């Protein structure tokens, strides 16, 4: 396993991502990862808040159209995340916080698909009050995405730390 991770980390692509002084390498990829987060988690949160009763006069059914944006944002982050992971494979893949983040993302995405099927798949949506089940999914959405963001941020501080130059050794 270690040999494989070292091989990934030393590949031409991973080395370029990590060590190139170009803003198109690590900085641009990290920027894309942040924009994807903003749209993916932000739109999920907006839908969850509406399900929980905020801005109640918004009809729910048309909000399903934001799923396309959410999926685009998800794939931007899956790809940019893979590149960032390759760049620091040996540190990130040995950091338990990274696996907690992956766990939260798996739960959050599965939950997002559940909301798409169970809530938006309901033909009488908007004709009856939001069900308790839908509200529970909305709470889980907020919890899982908050967990994913928290674990993602904490990867920079706990366990083997890699990432942005200048970050290391500055914060205890």
């Amino acid at each position: 396993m270690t040999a494989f991770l070292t091989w990934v980390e030393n590949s031409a692509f991973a080395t370029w991502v990590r060590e190139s002084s170009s803003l198109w390498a690590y900085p641009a990829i990290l920027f894309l990862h942040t924009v994807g987060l903003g749209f993916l988690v932000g739109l999920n949160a907006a839908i969850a808040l509406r399900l929980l009763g905020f801005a109640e006069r918004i009809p729910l059914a048309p909000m399903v159209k934001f799923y396309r944006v959410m999926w685009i944002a998800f794939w931007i982050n899956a790809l940019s995340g893979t590149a960032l992971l390759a760049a620091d494979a040996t540190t990130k893949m040995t950091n338990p916080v990274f696996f907690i983040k992956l766990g939260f993302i798996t739960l959050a995405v599965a939950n997002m698909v559940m909301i798409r099927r169970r809530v938006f798949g309901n033909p009488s949506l908007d004709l009856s009050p939001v069900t308790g089940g839908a509200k529970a999914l909305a709470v889980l959405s907020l919890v899982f995405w908050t967990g994913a963001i928290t674990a993602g941020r904490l990867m920079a501080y706990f366990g083997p730390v890699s990432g942005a130059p200048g970050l290391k050794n500055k914060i205890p």
Partner: protein
Amino acid sequence: MIQTFSTWLHSTRLSWAVAGGIPWIWPLCETLHFIGLALLMGVVSVLDLRMLGMAKELPLGPLQRLMPFAILGFTINLITGALFFTGDPTQYIHNAAFGFKLLFIGLAGVNVILFYVTGLYRRVDSVGAGHDVPAAAKVAAAASLALWIGVMYWGRMLPFIGNAF
């Protein structure tokens, strides 16, 4: 003057605490800063994408009731951002990316203020399902998306163009 202010700020106990004196404060603020980002971007993207023509079946009036969450997200980020600055002022005041980030936040703020004071807010508020917002509102929506994405860009560039973490 900025130099004097930042030297004073750096000498405070709060600065000491944020910069690692109390080790969990910085990571906590970073986490909150990204949660605030997601809240703000969520509301901004729903409103702006709708104004630009996506999910047109959504009436704008009820949609604008999500604004308090954008304000909440922005406030969280203003507070946590001010704490980062307090923790290590010198790494920001000499950082071009930080200057651009503030500029873009300022422009996004002007965009919001114009949206309200020009009465565009009220005209948009009455746009119902299936209808287009006025062209001026589309321009404001496009500007808003571009500016907030710009804010994220400059924020992300803090460690790379300047030397802040």
